[in-house]
């Protein structure tokens, strides 16, 4: 068992250091799909989150509670919902994008949209609570306040985006259902790991696992770096 693991680890190392084309393709598609999903979610999620952070309306609390609940959205449920939407008999079946990377982008966008919106809302609401009156006194309306606070909190928003990217790139349920794990077309790191493990090709699965772990580690390092910059900035302000 130990020898098998060591052999797998050795084979994974050869794959990684040999710049295996198959591995590179899978990693490239993973990054492309997750980055596209995060970019789309950033556009909609930050706008929605900032808006919810500065406005108050009847049902606002319920809307925030619903948004926070969506943070725990299971990826397989998202995959199933997108599958039903995009399948031939579904309302968006005519688009013909099921089992393509586009469908995977759609699924991951839906998955990380609540993450971006909820974390952005929290950030903007906190900033608005402390400074909204001063913005209003300068003549800022709701839209201007939301835009200015997004600008003000841009460093923290990088953390939000990195968190969303980490969630997207490491999920398997949604992309497996709507992508189909087709070799050379929709196979990404997580679906490949699942498949190769079931086939017994542990070196490739392990190699992909190491790449995925390295990526998530790099994201965490980036988050820590951004937070350290924020901390240094806050200290400078306090002085």
């Amino acid at each position, binding site marked *: 068992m130990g020898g098998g693991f060591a052999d797998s680890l050795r084979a994974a190392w050869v794959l990684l250091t040999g710049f295996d084309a198959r591995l590179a393709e899978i990693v490239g598609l993973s990054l492309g799909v997750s980055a596209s999903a995060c970019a789309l979610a950033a556009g909609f999620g930050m706008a929605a989150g900032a808006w919810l952070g500065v406005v108050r309306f009847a049902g606002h609390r319920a809307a925030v509670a619903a948004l926070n609940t969506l943070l725990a959205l299971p990826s397989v449920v998202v995959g199933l919902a997108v599958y039903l939407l995009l399948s031939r008999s579904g309302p968006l079946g005519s688009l013909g994008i099921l089992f393509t990377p586009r469908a995977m982008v759609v699924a991951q966008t839906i998955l990380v949209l609540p993450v971006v919106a909820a974390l952005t809302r929290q950030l903007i609401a906190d900033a608005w609570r*402390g*400074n909204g*009156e*001063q*913005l*209003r*006194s*300068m*003549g*800022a309306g709701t839209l*201007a306040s939301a835009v*200015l606070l997004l*600008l*003000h*909190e*841009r*460093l923290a928003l990088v953390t939000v985006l990195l968190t969303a990217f980490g969630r997207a790139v490491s999920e398997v349920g949604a992309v497996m259902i709507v992508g189909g794990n087709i070799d050379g077309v929709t196979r990404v790191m997580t679906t490949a790991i699942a498949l190769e493990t079931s086939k017994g090709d542990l070196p490739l699965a392990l190699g992909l696992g190491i790449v995925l772990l390295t990526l998530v580690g790099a994201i965490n390092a980036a988050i820590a770096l951004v937070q350290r910059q924020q901390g240094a*900035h806050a200290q*400078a*302000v306090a002085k």
Partner: protein
Amino acid sequence: MALNDVAVHFGAVTALSGVNFMLRPGERVALVGANGSGKTTLLRLLHGQLAHDGERRAALDAQGREPTQAMVFQRPFLLRLSVWNNLMVALWLARVPRGERAALATQALARVGLAMQRDRPARVLSGGQQQRLALARAWAVRPRVLFLDEPTASLDPGAKREVEQLIAEFAQEGMAVVMSTHNLGQAKRLATRVVYLEGGRLIVDLPTTDFFNRPLPEPAASFVKGELVWPM
């Protein structure tokens, strides 16, 4: 600008009641009183930031708008942008035409002595410099009325002097100034009129010389003597 029998409520709490107040062009009014007496609420009310009962009137200009106003807070909120961009944002929010903003921002920075700091991040300035930037931001929109909420409360004596000097100069340019302060010396130096509030009611409203030289009703007299007055 005038208030007639105005009251402000925050839920079940009455922050101001029965307030009558008149602000004339070029006046410098200091609002004094203990914590919770209603000074900041009165400033926010005059600035049009609060819902209220009673009447709040302002002399309107030819376009039917209230006179241009600006407010500077004890801890000014500065965006994580450069000094210059903070000014440009303030001018944009005040709907100053795009072509006029750069000139006004340049003048404002020179006016408060921050011209050399224009490209620095606003939030790394010292407390006094931040308050001067807030004053520049207010001055840039050429307000006819300037509201100041304890503008020197968290500053060291040197920065306090600089900010007081700027306020005095702004007032000399003709803008009306209403400021809340705990510092009676500051009220004496800067104001032409002193208003004493207690428990959300306006108790004394006198020219500065009278306020400091005439006998005052008891709570105000105790306050001036430096005795602690707890709001009821």
